[in-house]
């Protein structure tokens, strides 16, 4: 367990470098609210994507809805392109159980049938509960189950990771 977490910017730069050779002109980048959208915005700019950025709020697809209810701040999903037959790069900040990614894939399929979905995450912290693994990872860590790793954005737009 590292005492301090690495800077986010080099991690995103590394992600972009590994993703770049795999991008096709019709690939769309879709970030998962909220942290995934921040990372996706950076990747979208670094990779010079021509197609607009997609944003997904998976609140309506969560598997713990009947237990904890609706997230107090649901944001609208915004996918300003036709998903049918597209290659999708799905982006999230932290991969933990994999339940968020499952929910995101369920939601994507309600918009159409994509040709493929690949997953990029800033941090894979372990603790997977579903057969979901990232295709691109900025940082792999093992974080104990009782701890959370969070991405936050400062007022100046700077992204930082913290452990709580």
């Amino acid at each position: 367990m590292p005492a301090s977490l690495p800077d986010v910017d080099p991690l995103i730069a590394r992600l972009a470098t590994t993703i770049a050779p795999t991008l096709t002109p019709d690939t769309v980048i879709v970030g998962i609210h909220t942290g995934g959208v921040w990372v996706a915005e950076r990747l979208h700019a670094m990779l010079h994507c021509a197609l607009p950025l997609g944003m997904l709020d998976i609140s309506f697809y969560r598997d713990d809805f009947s237990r904890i209810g609706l997230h107090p701040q649901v944001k609208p999903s915004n996918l300003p392109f036709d998903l049918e037959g597209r290659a999708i790069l799905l982006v999230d900040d932290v991969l933990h159980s994999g339940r968020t990614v499952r929910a995101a894939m369920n939601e994507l399929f309600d918009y159409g049938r994509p040709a493929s979905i690949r997953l990029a995450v800033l941090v894979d912290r372990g603790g997977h509960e579903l057969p979901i693994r990232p295709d691109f990872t900025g940082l792999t860590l093992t974080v104990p189950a009782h701890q959370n790793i969070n991405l936050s954005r400062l007022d100046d737009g700077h992204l930082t990771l913290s452990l709580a």
Partner: protein
Amino acid sequence: MNPQLTADGRLRHLLTLDGLPRAILTQILDTAESFMDVGEREVKKVPLLRGKSIFNLFFEPSTRTRTTFEIAAKRLSADVVNLNIATSSQTKGEAILDTVDNLAAMHADMFVVRHSQSGAAHFIARHVAPHISVINAGDGRHAHPTQGLLDMFTIRRFKGEFHNLTVAIVGDVLHSRVARSQIHALTTLGVPEVRVIGPKTLLPTGVEQMGVKVFHTMEAGLAGCDVVIMLRLQSERMKGALLPSAQEYFKFFGLTPEKLALAKPDAIVMHPGPMNRGVEIDSEVADGPQSVILPQVTYGIAVRMAVMALLAGGTTA
């Protein structure tokens, strides 16, 4: 204690907008905003209420309100059962509760209730088990909270904010549960000037105590308004001594292009439907560029989805 809220302040039933905090109204409107695009997708459904059973209990007929509740429930993937129950066989409260108990025994999760008697939804809400939610879809002259909410959603969509608006509610306020819900919501959301316009016989005595300004002519009441909400005039009111005739009413209180010109040029016109064309509203206005009456219907689905989702979530915690 507010019977609509849980001990920790979350929505448990939706019975009236009276006394609901602004934060909850805003939460419902924000959630509805997120549901807006579901109706435009390839698959017009989200899986949120999968496996839940919602019963539409309509003791008073209403095709449109029942249909929008049904669509809202289905877009949330709930199972919906519609029951239109003739009021004649349901005059006693005991009979209503028997019906409710039977449906609860069929594992109902939510009741949407419309009844001609004020307080019917409260009566059922007090009776049901803790995991069951009740939505008032209109009770007598008392309240129609989801209509009030969809009207607020419509105003926010077209006007952006509430704090700088003048809103007029025109017509039969006395018999209108819609007007009561609108007034509560508008004042809670911070609209600085809410007006009611109508003949003395159709405005409740003491309506000023709800925080509204009273006008008896369209000329005075519509001047400078941002939003004009027309109410349906029930034809049975004409039979009593309250009004002389539909023609006479239209002359003084019907919304024509000439009268609408008194409001701000960008004022929007709303109506909860169904409209009496040529009684409370001229077709030229109802179908004109300032009318947002059909968007109200569309927004009603997203708003009812939001209410159902907020009520159904987290109940097994």
